[in-house]
C-alpha cells in the first residue's frame, strides 16, 4: 500500500478512479463538452496552485493570492477599460494593462518575500495581513476612480483570453511548463528545494536563501496575476472580488498533489494532478446534483486527508 501512496502518479490514479466512478452515474460527465468545461474552468486554479507550489517547496505559504487577483484585476481594468480607463482607446492599452497586472503581482510578491526573508516574519502572518491590506486597497482604488467595485468596457483583444479558450489554455500551459522547467532543470529550482529542506544548511552551502525565498513569492504573485488575467477576461469585468473563494482549492490542489506543507518536496506535475483531481471531483458531484455546501464539505475533507497524509509521510516515513 505504501508503494501506491508513495507513487508519483498516485493522484493521477485517483483521478482515473474518480473519472471511472462518476462516469456510469452521470453520462454528461464524460462528454467532450464537459471535459473541455473542466479543462477551461480549472486554468485559473492551475496557475494559482503552480505559483503556490514553489512557495510551499521553500517551506512557506502564500495566503495573499486571492488579494493579488483582485488588485491586479482592478489595476489592469483601470489602465485599459471602463469609462475612465487611463489608456482607454489607445492601441497600447492592452499590453500596458497586462504588464501592469503582472507587475502588480510581482510587487506584492516582492513585498511578501522581503518581509518573510529579510525581516524574518512568519509567512502566514505576512501574507494574511497583506491579504487584508491589498483587498482593501483594491476596493478603495476601484471606488475612488470609478465609484464602483466593477470596471467594465475592457478592450475586445483582452477579452479574447476569456472568449477564446485556446488562448487561455495556451497561456496556462506555457506558464505551467516554464514553472516545471524552472523547478526541474535549473539551479534556482534546486535552491528552492534546498531552502525548503533546511534553510540553515543551504545558507552555509552558499545558497542565497533570502533571494530564493523572495523569488518564490514573486513567482507566486506573477502567477496569481496571470490567473487574474484569465478571470478578468472571462467575466469581462475588473473587480476586487474575483476568485475570492479559491484559496482553499489553491493550497488543497498543491497538497493533494503531494507537495509538502513542511517544504522541500513537490513538483509542478503533481500539482497539475491535484488540480485535475479537485476539478473532476467538484464537477462530478455538481453533475450528480449534490449541493454546493456538500461539495465544499467533501473538498474540505479530501484536503484534510491529503494534509494528514503529508504529516504522516513527513513525520513517520521520512523520520524526524
Amino acid at each position, binding site marked *: 500500500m505504501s508503494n501506491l501512496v508513495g507513487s508519483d502518479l498516485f493522484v493521477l490514479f485517483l483521478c482515473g478512479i474518480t473519472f471511472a466512478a462518476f462516469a456510469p452515474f452521470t453520462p454528461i460527465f*464524460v462528454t467532450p463538452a464537459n471535459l473541455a468545461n473542466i479543462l477551461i474552468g480549472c486554468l485559473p486554479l492551475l496557475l494559482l496552485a503552480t505559483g503556490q507550489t514553489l512557495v510551499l517547496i521553500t517551506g512557506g505559504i502564500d495566503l495573499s493570492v486571492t488579494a493579488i487577483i483582485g488588485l491586479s484585476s482592478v489595476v489592469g481594468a483601470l489602465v485599459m477599460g471602463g469609462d475612465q480607463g487611463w489608456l482607454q482607446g489607445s492601441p497600447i492599452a492592452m499590453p500596458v494593462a497586462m504588464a501592469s497586472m503582472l507587475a502588480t503581482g510581482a510587487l506584492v510578491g516582492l513585498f511578501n518575500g522581503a518581509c518573510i526573508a529579510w525581516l524574518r516574519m512568519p509567512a502566514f502572518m505576512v501574507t494574511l495581513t497583506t491579504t487584508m491590506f491589498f483587498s482593501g486597497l483594491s476596493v478603495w482604488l476601484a471606488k475612488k476612480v470609478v465609484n464602483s467595485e466593477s470596471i467594465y468596457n475592457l478592450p475586445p483583444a483582452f477579452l479574447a483570453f476569456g472568449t477564446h479558450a485556446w488562448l487561455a489554455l495556451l497561456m496556462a500551459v506555457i506558464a505551467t511548463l516554464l514553472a516545471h522547467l524552472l523547478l526541474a532543470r535549473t539551479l534556482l529550482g534546486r535552491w528552492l528545494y534546498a531552502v525548503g529542506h533546511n534553510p540553515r544548511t543551504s545558507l552555509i552551502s552558499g545558497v542565497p536563501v533570502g533571494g530564493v525565498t523572495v523569488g518564490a513569492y514573486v513567482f507566486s504573485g506573477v502567477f496569481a496575476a496571470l490567473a487574474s488575467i484569465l478571470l478578468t477576461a472571462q467575466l469581462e469585468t475588473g473587480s476586487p472580488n474575483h476568485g475570492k473563494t479559491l484559496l482553499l482549492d489553491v493550497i488543497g490542489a498543491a497538497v493533494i498533489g503531494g507537495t509538502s506543507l513542511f517544504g522541500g518536496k513537490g513538483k509542478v506535475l503533481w500539482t497539475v494532478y491535484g488540480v485535475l483531481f479537485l476539478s473532476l471531483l467538484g464537477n462530478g458531484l455538481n453533475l450528480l446534483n449534490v449541493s454546493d455546501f456538500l461539495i465544499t464539505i467533501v473538498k474540505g475533507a479530501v484536503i484534510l486527508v491529503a494534509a494528514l497524509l503529508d504529516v504522516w509521510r513527513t513525520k513517520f516515513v521520512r523520520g524526524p
Partner: protein
Amino acid sequence: MNLRITFSPTFFTAAFAIVALALTGCGKSDSGAANSSTSSSTSAAPDQVKTIGVAFETLQTEFWVAAFDKLKADCAAKGITMLEGVADGDASKQFDQVRNFINRKVDGIIIVPKDGKTVIPMIKAANAANIPVVLYNRPADPTDAKHTAVAPDNFAITKETVTYLVSLAKKTGKKQKAMILLGDLGDVNAIGRRDGFEAAIKDAGEAVEVVARIPTDWNQEKALAGVQSAMQANPDIGLIFTSSDFMFPSIKSVLSNLGKWKKHNEPGHIILGGFDGDATAYQLMAEGYVDATGVQDVYWEAEQAIQVIIAAKDGQISPTRIDDQGFAITQANLKEMESRMWGAVVATKKK
C-alpha cells in the same frame, strides 16, 4: 499490507489514458442515447420544461432563502428538475456553475448575479447555447445579450417607504438627522434604493438632513461598525433607513446598547425603515420597533421567473424587464397589508 505492485509512471499514464479514452467513448454513446431520448420525448411534448438551473449569488439572507425555496417548490409542483448552484459571492464560481448548466442542456437558467456587470458573459454563454436566461431580482447593466430580468422597482418602493418615514419625522416638529445604510453599489438594486431614498429626502425639503451614508456592501458586520461610528459622531440621529431588512439586527444591537431601541409609541423612538419585507422586519413591525419597510413580492417574482422559461420553451419572447411593483408596508397599514408581505408568511410558518 503490501500489494507488491510496481507503480511505474508509464503504467499509470497508460492505464489512465486507456480508462479515460474508453470512458469518453462510452460517454459519447451514452450521451447520444441521452440526446436521442431527449429528442424523442421532445417530440412527444415539445413545450415541456424538464430542467432549470438556478444559480444564486448567496443564500445569506432570509430573502434569498425564501426565493430559493419558492423556486424549488414551484419547480417540484410543475415536475421540473431544479439544478442548484450557490456562488458565495464569487462571480467566477457562478460562471462555472452556469457553464455546468449549459453543458447539461437545461431548458432555462435563473441567475441571481453578484452584480449587473459580471453576469453579462454568463448571459452571452447561455445565448450561444440557445438557453433562455432570467435574472432574478437583480438586473444586468445595459447589454445586447438576450435575457429577462424580474426585479422590483427599487426606486419607487423605496421612495414610497421613505416618504412615509419623512412624514413621521415632520410630525416630531423638529429637523431630524438621518442615516442610510447603503448596499453594494455595484448592485443596481442598491443604487435604486439609494436613489429612492435621496429623492424622498429631497422632497422633504428642510425637514430631514442626511448626516451619515454607511457603505455596507451587504455585510452585517460592516453595517454594525458603520452604525456604531455614525451614532458616536451624531448621537441625535432620529431617522434610519436600511437598504435591506437583514441589517435590522445590526441596527438593533447598536441602538439597544445606547438605550435608544424604543417602540414607535415610546418617547425617544428613532424612526426606522427598511427594504425587503422579510420575517425579521415583520416581527419588528408587529412589536412596534420598525415604522415601515418596502416589500418586494418574492413569491410573485419566483413564479414569473419560471413562467418566462416555460414561455420561452413555447417560443414566446418575454420582455427584457418585468417589474415587481411592490408596496410600502407601514404601521398605518400593517393589519390590512400583512397578508401580502412574504416575511409575514415566513414568520407565521415558523410559528
